């Protein structure tokens, strides 16, 4: 670039700065957040999920609700992720825990302004989901009633991204799909899962491979789901509509990196 051109450029920038500094009459506020296409969810949808938590709280009376972000794309940095409720005039920072869980306040103004819950990461960086936990459970277990409640919240907040055929949408609009849909609902383990077992009293039943890693879905359909690509090894599906398992059923999760405690079991049951 020649010096002459650089001079003109400098003059233009200077004019712009001077112009921007001059106060104008009632100019609309344009907020620049750094991302044109951030990962966000509708605040109203997430509040509807909180309403569902209250409505179906009987499934997990001692549980509390938090929402959770799961990084689903390689390269998404969990550290430094921020969250805020943003509307036309509303801007409420939302504290994010180290495990990327958070709670949302109920705010009438944010509701009226149809605000969004916005991250500082680009769109589709995260899978969003409810995280319902009954306190005092043994390590590496979930409670089936908690998972059923998560299903109801997910259904109300529409957080789960996946392929939903028209037949499902019709069913969803007319009945309680969590308790009538013959399929299974998706869940994520805290880490990569190897074995998942339903346990109630003396009854134990493991999930088969068709219920792990999204294997029930054909590969092309997996691309539509949030668990693809990074959460595949954490994904398991539970048929929460199976009422032969009560809410107090424990879902035992054995992770890939857990120590091996049960190898001898195969020899014991093999014919």
């Amino acid at each position, binding site marked *: 670039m020649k010096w002459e051109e650089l001079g003109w450029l400098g003059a233009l920038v200077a004019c712009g700065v001077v112009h921007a500094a001059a106060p104008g009459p009632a100019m609309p506020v344009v907020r620049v957040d750094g991302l044109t296409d951030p990962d966000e969810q509708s605040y109203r949808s997430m509040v509807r999920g909180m309403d569902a938590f209250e409505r179906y709280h009987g499934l997990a009376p001692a549980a509390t609700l938090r929402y959770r972000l799961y990084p689903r794309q*390689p390269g998404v940095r969990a550290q430094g992720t921020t969250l805020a409720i943003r509307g036309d005039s509303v801007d409420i920072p939302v504290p994010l825990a180290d495990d990327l869980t958070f709670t949302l306040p109920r705010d009438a103004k944010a509701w009226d302004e149809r605000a969004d819950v916005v991250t500082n990461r680009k769109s589709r960086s995260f899978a969003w989901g409810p995280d319902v936990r009954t306190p005092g459970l043994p390590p590496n277990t979930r409670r089936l009633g908690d998972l059923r409640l998560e299903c109801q919240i997910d259904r109300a907040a529409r957080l789960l991204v996946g392929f939903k055929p028209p037949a499902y949408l019709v069913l969803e609009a007319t009945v309680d799909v969590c308790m009538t849909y013959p399929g299974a609902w998706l869940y994520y383990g805290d880490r*990569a899962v*190897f*074995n998942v077992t339903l346990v109630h009293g003396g009854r134990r*039943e*493991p*999930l*088969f*491979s068709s219920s*792990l*890693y999204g*294997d029930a879905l054909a590969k092309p359909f997996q691309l539509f789901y949030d668990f693809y*690509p*990074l959460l*595949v*090894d954490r994904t398991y599906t539970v048929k929460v509509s199976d009422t*032969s398992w009560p809410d107090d059923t424990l879902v035992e999760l*054995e992770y*890939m990196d857990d120590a*091996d405690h*049960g*190898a001898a*079991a*195969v*020899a014991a*049951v*093999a*014919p």
Partner: protein
Amino acid sequence: MTALRFFLPRLGAVAGLAVGLGGCAMLGLYDGAPLTEAATRQALTPGVSTRADVARVLGTAKVNTFDSGFEVWTYRYKAGLPVFAGYVPGVGALASLADATTRERELAILFGPEGFVRKYRLREAPSRAERLVGSR
């Protein structure tokens, strides 16, 4: 009567063939080699057995490979009559009964990124008949 004389021996032969093949399947030969205690001991020593060791003894598995380098190999077993037996006249009912009363098994083997067996689990699901009784 003539028709009966024609069909009965053939029906017997088909039934015999189906039951004979079913006998093979009773060993659990569906996707891989039969699952026996000796086979599992031979193929599945955590920290020692490799993918090649397992494939040699148990056959071809369904494989899930993950970005972390871990792999899960799965072998499904279900003792019972072969699927086509359900379509053979006279044997169909027997095949259905066998199918309804036998348990399904699955052996899942976890390989670490270094390629050795980390651990394995045998999963077993109740038969359809057991589920039916259990749900009452």
